[in-house]
């Protein structure tokens, strides 16, 4: 327990960052119970290791990085193995889509992104979802910016294979 982090501040931090970290974790692990577990872990770790936060980057970046690392640990662990089979069977949406607009449904891009292998999904998440620049993405992922560019290019190619013509047009303009 440290005295530097005020209880109110901590609650405030959780209040501000939870939504965002949940979304980020979900994009990695694609499973809500796991995403919640991970974000819980992140805050507990943060609380207990507050002194180590050197404020070199913003709090958001710091928490994101911890979250992503924990997501990757999870994805490497045996629990993920058990889950990946479930995911592959339950991708059919059941009761929460309105049929009247199903034909015009425009979330195929999101679906395709979630199906990408991790290392391509990751760069898409950082570049499009977190809206970082190439250099910032490179820093977050410990890669060279050329590698990031290459992966983005490859990710777009993979997405293009998955999506129909009009949806692909949309992406070209991003």
């Amino acid at each position, binding site marked *: 327990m440290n005295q530097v982090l005020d209880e109110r501040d901590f*609650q405030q931090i*959780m*209040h501000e960052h*939870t*939504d965002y970290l*949940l*979304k980020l974790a*979900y*994009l990695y692990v694609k499973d*809500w119970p796991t995403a*919640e*577990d991970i*974000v*819980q*872990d992140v*805050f*507990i770790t943060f*609380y*207990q290791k507050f002194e180590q936060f050197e404020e070199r980057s913003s709090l958001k970046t710091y928490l994101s990085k911890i979250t992503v690392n924990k997501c990757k*640990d*999870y*994805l*490497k*662990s*045996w*629990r*993920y*193995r058990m889950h*990946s*089979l*479930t995911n*592959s*069977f*339950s991708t*059919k949406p*059941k*009761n*929460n*889509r*309105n*049929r*009247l*607009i199903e034909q*015009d449904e*425009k*979330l195929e*891009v*999101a*679906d395709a*992104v*979630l199906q990408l*292998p*991790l290392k391509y999904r990751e760069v*898409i998440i950082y570049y*499009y*979802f977190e*809206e970082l620049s190439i250099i910032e993405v490179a820093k977050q992922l410990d890669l060279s910016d050329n590698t990031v560019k290459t992966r983005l290019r490859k990710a777009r190619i993979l997405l293009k294979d998955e999506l129909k013509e009009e949806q692909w047009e*949309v*992406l070209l303009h*991003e």
Partner: protein
Amino acid sequence: MNEIKKQLMAKIGDTSEQKTRVIKRVNNALDSKSQKEKKFAWGYYVTFASFIGIFVVGLLLIPKLMNEQASQNEDNLPVVEPVDDPIQEPTEENGYYDDLIKFFPPNGTVATFKSGNSYTTVETNWLSDRYVQETIYVKDCVSCSSSSTRTFSNVFRITNEEIQQIYYGDPLEWTIQKLDQRPSLGVQLTGPIEVGTEIGIQKIVAIDAELSIDYGTFSNVVVVEGGAYPTTQEIPRTYYVPNYGVVKGGTEEFGYELVSISFDNEVTDKENDYNSLLKSYFFPPEDMDQFFIGGFENGGAKVQTRWLSGQFVQQISYNGGGTIERIYKITENQIVEIYENMIEDNQPSDLTISELEQLPTLEIVMKAPFTIGDVFEGWTLVDTNGQVSTMYGVFEDVLIVESKTENYLSRRYFATGFGEVKIESMFYNEETGKYEEGVTTELASFGQIMNEVVGNYKFRVFEEEQYKYNSIDEEETSPLNTKRAILHGRAGDFEGINRLVIEDLETGKFTIYKYRYEGEQNTPKDIEWIDENRLYVIIGYAYGTVTMGGNLYILNVEDHSITPVFEDSTNKEEIMTIGANGDGTFTYKKHIYEDEEFNVGHIEEGILSSMD
């Protein structure tokens, strides 16, 4: 906001519920001052290359494993990528031991591999922390009984530098002394686990690779390449996953891959009660009607199960094409069919228990214990721990059987507590070289058995003396108070499926209307009596916020006929409500969408006369 972000945000949706939970749990955890335990159990080790042993050492002894026809297609090529990893320095205490033991799974793990059409099961037993034994059962023909499987065993020693194979042959009893004395027959793996490490003529070519096989997708795969098979030019590879073991190996032409793995001996724990096991997988525990969507001409199906006694169960299947009654007997370790008959006029058989006991076996449906590879009347058991998704929900712990010919592949899924929950039939497409979906039948809903009568093209109709309902959405009595119409089901939220129930207040009988095509997810939403025998019903899509109502029908509750009121409405028009004006006319509100995105609309009113 860019399109990708927009869609991802829409896809993820509102996270406030999850947020509340997270914050609450964090506060609870910190309050109790307990360190949250890391959930990732690293106590699982990985099985490795018993097959390297088989193929290299035992090649001549198991010719059939190698002679299966090529069964893998190009999609199984893994994404193998060299990754920069820090060099793993050997620790002072035990060298690479900690990494090497990860290549065997925990004690008692049973893994099954498929090569062409034959199956091999590997059971792992740790004899000490340095010695591990694999017992291997090979079925070299699909329809072999278990007595014709070949059994042999490999034993490995794990030193600080490497994994050595020290025995290959019939399974034996070992002491540590005896094991210590055995020389190495060959090295399976050497540390450090990094790209470039050489193991004899083999080499690690990747770590952290990604691999997709039928069983699942792995993203931490270590790939070892090298050696040669005498019968092919291809270089064999072995893929293993820390915490799992070997998941795939061989060449594309002669290869094998993991189809199932059980870490805690689930199936063998049930050894003691095959009878219950069989019952639970193949039949629901209580009498019930199960409704399926799909099927022949998408007409859906119903299966009615009745337990005639503890060991005899009757199932009547209605699938639009015909009605078939079957009776099964469940013995100590088998399910057998003893009766099968098409029913013409819904009159099932009426046999006594002693008559049933005398019926001979027509067909063995299933035997326990289950082993992957078992064959029953043309169906092969391909999974004992699978998962399947149906309209009703996702099931785990599913038995999957398959029947495969050149042109046609059929698969059936059995879940505990439910019985058969899905049937897929697929047709071989020569152009793509794959089996493609033909007809799928899957579980949509179930409930108590009700007496079904002839319905109409919108509703199945049931008649019952008693009917319980908890939630009532709407209730209306007919003009002369002889009947009451009840919509029940949705209660509270405005989404979900209703049943329309008509209670005859004079006779006390209930008539239940259930929307026939469950796959469409339509529901009756609003009702208004016209006279004692007829009412208006609005039927529309049950979910979401775009729908404003539905289509309007007149339902006759005497003969159960149904007629649409408006013949040519478009999918942009929905009737929202209908109400009686008291003078024989009815006012309805209609919502009309003006745009293609179903965002903008307006409401019109209209009047109907009950004479129309």
